[in-house]
């Protein structure tokens, strides 16, 4: 597989990968930007995701009938929107001025719409057989992707380039309301969204891991076009982006298309990235109420790649949580019948900064979280005291190799994995080396890492209790 990957770099620094797979006359394409929640600043949380929404609103060439005229109106909207946002989020809102601005903005919106082609990005993709057209924002990255018939590669590349390089910031304030609704559904009224938010704010006192990717409520309602524009111009620069195409495409032609679509945008220098700045807090136990069945999150602070302990954490994760015979699933779900489900992650909430090893348990009704925590403690302590058997290590290796293969079986999955490893770690090869790196982990490594990191002073426990 690795040998079939064609790599190249455009003159502006954007990295590209093409993998030819000819099972069907289609391809999947992704552009991933090293810009996510970790690149936000205090007070402007949620701006990475807000920009992602803007990308679908078109560019100076897509979504408009007359950019020169439209632009003048958009500028007025930008100015008024900033003023309105400042008033609404200020100490004592000026009711009269607010009403006047709202009225004026509504009129401008109507005027602008005369020059706009609503949803043109979507229309172009859909009219040409696009499937799975979407984007996501995580702590680490923002990604834009779609699958299309093979002979629409040029269309995909050119439209995607418009989205990421030439955004017009249309309908920003309407879209901000949409995002506010998204937040209500995903965090405010969602038991799991609420637990994620509580866990993050408990584990990190400051810094980008202390808030969830969608942003804090008070920040999201205060975002302006200027904020989104600034985030975009700082982060969406070619050398900070990776593109991948997997499918039935001619490689030479695909290279020309990509160069034509993405090559003309100049690279800019990016401000230095945040390396740390999070105040990690350990030894925390807290709980909160929600109108939902309980859940328990247990997490420990840990380093992230390139620190080699990552591979040991992968082994620990598999031992505890991979498959029905894994230690925690077996004990909590089957032997003791305490929990419905156990999930684990060793890269929570992201991979670019030092992160968390997370165990997430959904207890059965009436079962005590204390008992569950005791069993988790026992299993952690077992890791520190009892060497892992050769048989257990062999099983983990098998699970990791198989898991890698299963993760690459669709064009869009392979495209995303390649993009993820290159964007986050600057090393696409790591994707394929992964099983070998994990295979090198020894039973001594497991004991040493467990003793070093999986300790109480490093631990956060958050319990969600049912409360009406």
């Amino acid at each position, binding site marked *: 597989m690795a040998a079939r990957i064609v790599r190249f770099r455009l003159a502006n620094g954007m990295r590209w990968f093409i993998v030819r797979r000819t*099972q*069907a006359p*289609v391809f999947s394409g992704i552009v991933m930007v090293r810009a996510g929640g970790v690149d936000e600043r205090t007070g402007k949380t949620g701006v990475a*995701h807000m920009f992602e*929404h803007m990308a679908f609103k078109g560019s100076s*060439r897509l*979504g*408009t*009938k007359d950019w020169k005229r439209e632009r003048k109106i958009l500028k007025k909207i930008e100015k008024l929107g900033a003023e309105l946002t400042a008033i609404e989020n200020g100490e004592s809102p000026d009711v009269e001025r607010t009403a006047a601005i709202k009225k004026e903005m509504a009129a401008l919106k109507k005027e602008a719409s005369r020059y706009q082609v*609503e*949803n*043109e990005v*979507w*229309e*172009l*993709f*859909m*009219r*040409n*057989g*696009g499937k799975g*057209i*979407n*984007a996501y924002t*995580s702590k680490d990255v923002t990604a834009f992707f779609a699958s299309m*018939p093979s002979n*629409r590669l*040029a*269309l995909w590349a*050119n439209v995607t380039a418009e989205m990421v390089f030439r955004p017009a910031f249309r*309908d920003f304030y*309407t879209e*901000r*309301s949409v995002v506010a*609704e*998204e937040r209500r*559904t995903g965090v405010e009224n969602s038991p799991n969204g609420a637990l*994620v938010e509580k866990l993050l704010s408990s584990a990190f006192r400051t810094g980008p891991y202390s808030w969830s*990717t969608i942003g804090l409520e008070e920040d999201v309602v205060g975002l302006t076009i200027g904020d989104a524009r600034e985030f975009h111009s700082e982060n969406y620069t070619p050398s900070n982006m990776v593109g991948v195409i997997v499918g039935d495409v001619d490689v030479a032609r695909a290279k020309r298309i990509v160069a034509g679509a993405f090559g003309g945008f100049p690279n800019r220098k990016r401000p230095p990235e945040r390396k740390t700045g999070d105040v990690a807090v350990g030894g925390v136990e807290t709980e909160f109420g929600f*109108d*939902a069945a309980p859940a328990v999150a247990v997490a420990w602070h840990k380093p*992230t*790649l390139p620190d080699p302990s990552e591979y040991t954490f*992968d082994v620990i994760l598999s031992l505890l949580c991979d*498959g*029905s*015979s*894994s230690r925690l699933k077996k004990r909590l*779900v*089957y032997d003791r*019948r305490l929990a*419905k489900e156990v999930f684990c992650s060793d890269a929570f*909430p992201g991979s670019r900064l030092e992160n968390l090893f997370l165990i997430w348990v*959904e207890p*059965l*009704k009436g079962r005590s979280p204390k008992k569950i925590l005791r069993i988790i403690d026992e299993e952690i302590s077992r890791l520190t005291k009892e060497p892992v058997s050769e048989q257990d290590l*062999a099983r983990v290796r098998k699970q990791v190799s198989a898991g890698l*293969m299963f993760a690459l079986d669709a064009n869009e999955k392979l495209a995303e994995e390649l993009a993820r490893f290159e964007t986050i770690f600057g090393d696409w090869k790591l994707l394929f080396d*992964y099983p070998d790196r994990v295979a090198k982990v020894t039973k001594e490594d497991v004991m040493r890492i467990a003793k070093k990191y999986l300790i109480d002073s490093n631990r956060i426990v958050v319990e969600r209790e049912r409360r*009406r």
Partner: protein
Amino acid sequence: MRRVFAIAIVFAALLAPVSLRAASGHFDRLERGALPQVRPPKVRTVVLPNGMRCYLLADHTLPIVEMGVIVKAGSIYEPAKKVGLAALSASLMKIGGAGERSPEEFDSALDDIGASLSVSSGREMQSANLKVMSEDVRRGLGLFFDMLFKPVFDKSRLKTARKTLQEEIIREDDDPGEQASYELRKLVYGEDSPWARRPTKRSIRAVKLGDIESYHERYYRANNMILIAAGDFSYAEFISLLKEFTACAPVGEIDFPKVEPVEMELKGDERTIVRPTSQAFIRMGELTIKRHNPDKYALFLVDTILGAGGFKSRLMDEIRVKRGLAYSVYSALMPGTDYGLFVVGLDTSANQADRAIELVREQIAAMAGGHISKEELAFAKRSMISRLVFLFDKPYGVVSHMARFHFYGYPEDYWRIYRDRIVASKLSDLKRVAKQYLHPDKLDVVIVGPNPKGRARGKGR
């Protein structure tokens, strides 16, 4: 780092489309050239001596094999007092041990080869799926067929299955959106309808080990299953493995219990479930056509234009794009074996609920009143047809679609019929079916959210 916990925020949307118009500037030239024809790869169809129909597709791209079965069984066949029997049977089959192996031994054997096994239980179909490295295909098949034909149904694991199912129901109800969807189904079909009912603590407790054993014996027969497999194997070897492992599979006619037919009745009922959420979770719906109704294709086009087509569908455009009232708003047409369900869903700040419901009704009324344009039809057709190529872009998808077509009584190249009927649909057909099947004033409505009295003055932007 392998596992990324699901916390990425996805932009949104289902599919998407509308209005056939050349793109601005230089983009229209990029749309030239006919879209590729749909050409499904050649699939090997085999019917084993025991009656098991198999769809196989060798593909050596990766050293893995994915396989599965679909079984005609499910919750519509359960006795009313034992709702949950089908789901419990499926889950106990997976976790209760198989062949010579105890549950623990079975779990370990699967994990030793890094296999991924899942089972699922629907209203009229159950399925099992296995992914395994091709070097372990023999061991994988052994475990898979042991589970299907020689399940142990360990008694202590039945307790686990019961508790887990009960917990699933509790947690589904905790999610206001899911709760609203289930409640709408109940309102449309009736609380006790096989197409709407859900397991309760009592009905789960009523399911005994003997019920599960006889359920399994009744439905898990080779001739009541379709097997699908794709991946890194040779046909001859794989087929001989299938023969070997299914040699002992039970065979015989199945006596399906009679399922009470759905009575076609439109009510226009409304139900509010008070919860202290900041949003109202709204689901509106009515009974709709059966699967083999020839009006289905025109009605799918209507649904696409109305709300199943993503961003440019009317509901999305009016409620999200133009007004910012909701993140998610959609319509979905689900024709059924019996009368199916047509549903519109949206979540919006509580104080906007009444307005949003009114907007939905207006949009449905406009469709029913025949306000559909030629451009909308052309765009919907094109987006639906041009996406068909993706039915067959993954080897396992190819066999999986074919098996499902067969299961629902279509020919195996049903996609051609679908394509031709969509293409042949005329504007007059859409207007006729929209008028006949959409009833804006007779929709049942479920709202999960704060008290309606507080709704108008509730907080929200």
